[in-house]
């Protein structure tokens, strides 16, 4: 007899999904001028969830005007009053946490355990944390009299939809800006629910505007003359495009782009916790994480032992229905992303690396990829250089700490890295030499509103979170 977990589905009853969603502009839900819509699906089942308004240039223009109107009210307010709106938003998000979690899981494909225990609590915490900065900016080390940009345009990705929204909107509002935000095409629903929260919090009209759409909508935001600053999280390629677009316009720009994080394991690492850290680093959120530990740099003398443990651990990863509370890995967010992952992984095979995948039962419908790692990978392999953005790990070995550093840094990216060892001085030495904006020692993928996040090199410009993250939204600040 074995201990099989019976299905433990989270109920969908808490969520009401409308058949059609409009744009959120000037505190109201308004139809797009041309009346176009697109659909959003549940990537675990491929069923259509809703029709979403498609914002064209004129709709973006309307949103910017609403944000400018909102700015007039927002900027006259006492900073402590702005803070209190953010506290209200944080509290309402906490009250409606379960609703947000279920909706996020349905729209994104990630497991309910993650949305419930990580995404949503962190998102609310970002608002709570930044609410406290609103009336303390003169202490924040960003200058005596820091000024907001005004109207900021924000474009966010599909991997942590509500959390990315919080990382953008909370600091922007706390520093006195108003926003026009475009959620990702495949994950608009929690942003639209967030718009409802803004209404419940009685946020003044136009302070937050949500325009749904695709890359063209994003371009309309980037190029809009009424927007004074752009904040973008997404692929490095699009980030570079945006940098070129805003050149010479005087617009502020912060970017949070891709990564190919090195997770470095030394021989004296705490083994079991390291295996958890590796699994968490690349398989958490189906590997759709810019700061994923997608390269495992393992000291050669423990490689075999570590990989045996890793294989064993991977055999316990539960892939399946994201709404099941026991699911560890959910669906890949879209067919398009699945194709990218598949193609890159195949390059690993053809370029001579050796593949291992956890044996998972793949559901008939939906987009899925089993947790996978490749051994025999060297720096020249595509899977060692290019961001896969999926649950695929490349294993590379090293012999000395210097070699580990060189390999870790040998990439155009510089977002994150991990180091596993029992020795404190080695943690600090490794951290000192790594060219990465976020370094996790004996842990991985930990996020907190108080902890600044962002990358070196082609992983982006600027930081989000913490005191340092405020600078992104204040003019004249570094």
């Amino acid at each position, binding site marked *: 007899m074995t201990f099989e977990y019976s299905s433990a589905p989270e109920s969908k009853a808490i969520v009401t999904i409308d058949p059609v969603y409009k744009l959120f502009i000037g505190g109201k839900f308004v139809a797009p001028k041309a009346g176009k819509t697109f659909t959003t699906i549940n990537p675990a089942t491929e069923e259509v969830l809703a029709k979403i308004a498609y914002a064209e240039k004129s709709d973006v223009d309307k949103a910017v005007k609403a944000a400018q109107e909102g700015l007039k009210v927002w900027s006259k307010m006492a900073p*402590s009053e702005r803070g209190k709106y953010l506290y209200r938003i944080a509290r309402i998000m906490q009250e409606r946490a379960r609703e947000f979690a279920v909706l996020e899981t349905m729209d994104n494909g990630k497991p309910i355990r993650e949305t419930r225990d990580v995404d949503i609590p962190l998102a609310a915490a970002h608002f709570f944390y930044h609410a*406290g900065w*609103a009336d303390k900016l003169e202490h924040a080390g960003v200058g005596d009299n820091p000024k907001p940009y005004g109207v900021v345009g924000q474009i966010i990705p599909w991997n942590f939809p509500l959390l990315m929204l919080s990382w953008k909107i909370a600091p922007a509002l706390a520093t006195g800006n108003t926003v026009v935000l475009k959620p990702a095409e495949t994950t608009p629903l929690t942003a639209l629910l967030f718009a409802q929260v803004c209404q419940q919090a009685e946020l003044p009209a136009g302070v937050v505007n949500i325009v749904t759409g695709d890359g063209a909508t994003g371009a309309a935001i980037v190029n809009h003359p009424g927007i004074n600053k752009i904040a973008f999280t997404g692929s490095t390629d699009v980030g570079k495009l945006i940098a070129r677009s805003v050149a010479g316009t005087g617009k502020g720009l912060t970017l949070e782009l891709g990564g190919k994080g090195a997770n470095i394991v030394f021989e004296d690492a705490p083994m079991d916790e390291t295996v958890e850290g590796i699994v968490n680093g690349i398989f958490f959120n189906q590997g759709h994480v810019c700061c994923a530990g997608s390269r495992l740099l393992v000291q050669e003398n423990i490689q075999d032992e570590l990989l045996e443990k890793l294989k064993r651990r991977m055999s316990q990863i539960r892939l399946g229905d994201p709404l099941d509370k026991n699911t560890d890995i959910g669906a890949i967010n879209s067919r398009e992303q699945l194709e990218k992952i598949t193609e890159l992984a195949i390059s690993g095979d053809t370029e001579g690396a050796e593949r291992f995948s956890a044996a998972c039962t793949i559901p008939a419908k939906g987009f899925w990829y089993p947790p996978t790692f490749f051994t025999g990978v060297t720096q020249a392999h595509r899977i060692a250089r290019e961001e896969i953005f999926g649950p695929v790990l490349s294993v590379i070995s090293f012999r000395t700490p210097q070699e580990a550093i060189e390999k870790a840094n040998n990439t155009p990216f510089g977002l994150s890295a991990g180091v596993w060892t029992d020795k404190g*001085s080695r943690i*600090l030495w490794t951290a000192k030499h790594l060219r990465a904006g976020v370094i996790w020692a004996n842990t991985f993928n930990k996020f907190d*509103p108080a902890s600044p996040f962002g990358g070196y090199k082609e992983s982006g410009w600027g930081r989000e979170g913490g005191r340092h993250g405020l600078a992104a939204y204040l003019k004249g600040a570094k």
Partner: protein
Amino acid sequence: MSNSKSRAMRLDVKKTYKLFIGGAFPRSESGRTYQVADSKGEFIANPSLASRKDLRDAVVAARSARAGWSGATAFNRGQILYRIAEMMEGRSAQFVDEIIALEGLTPSAAKKQVEEAIDLWVWYSGWCDKIGSIYGSTNAVSGSFYNFTIPDSLGVVAVFAPAKPSLLGLVHSLAPVLAGGNTAIVIASEKYPLSAITLSEAIGTSDVPGGVVNILTGSAAELAPWAASHMDIDGIDATGLNSTQEKEVRIAGADNLKRISSFKDGASPQRVLAFMENKTVWHPIGV
């Protein structure tokens, strides 16, 4: 049996004003109370007259609560303090009535004080998880060492609340002590104690662990020497004491080098730092 006359003449259920120690509302172990009059000289209430033993009990409660409070994450402390503001807001009317009665203010002036007090409490709540990012540092020492300084909470702090404004002045003193991760014993203003007790009721319904805040009503003159000489109190906010009392407190407090401050100005992160200690850590950087 009801008739319109008895409905018109409804007797209100008056509150008994007790101490707040260890999350509970006991009377003074001495059994003593004293009379508080409103601004017109009319009797208002018989709050407890706290004894040195009540103070001692409060210190025990504050000390037991210390590990849990300072060990909680700063974010968690901020959330709990914000919750207290939510509860204060709910009791605004009661605060306003008490201030009107005791301080003789107009309703609009009383309302303004209460609103300022609540907003000030919210302001300090937001400091909990930010103090370290501004007032901590990494220090560029010579040698291959990582060296950082972090502000650490002090411990148990006794707060002598100023008389007026009775609620706002108390918040100015108490909120920063808590924001810095300390536990507190408040000795309320003898003449204007009611805001402190109503505040204790708001705190009692806010998920604040018992003992984090303790509130005593009574005579500062009687209790100050006991607080000053108590070897398990780490710091004192002497704002509510007069200069003679403060001097005596400083003399007695020197026995365990209490950190003693008295504030004249308003809100500032310096008031949080006044009851914190800087800890500096060295760690080698090497393979």
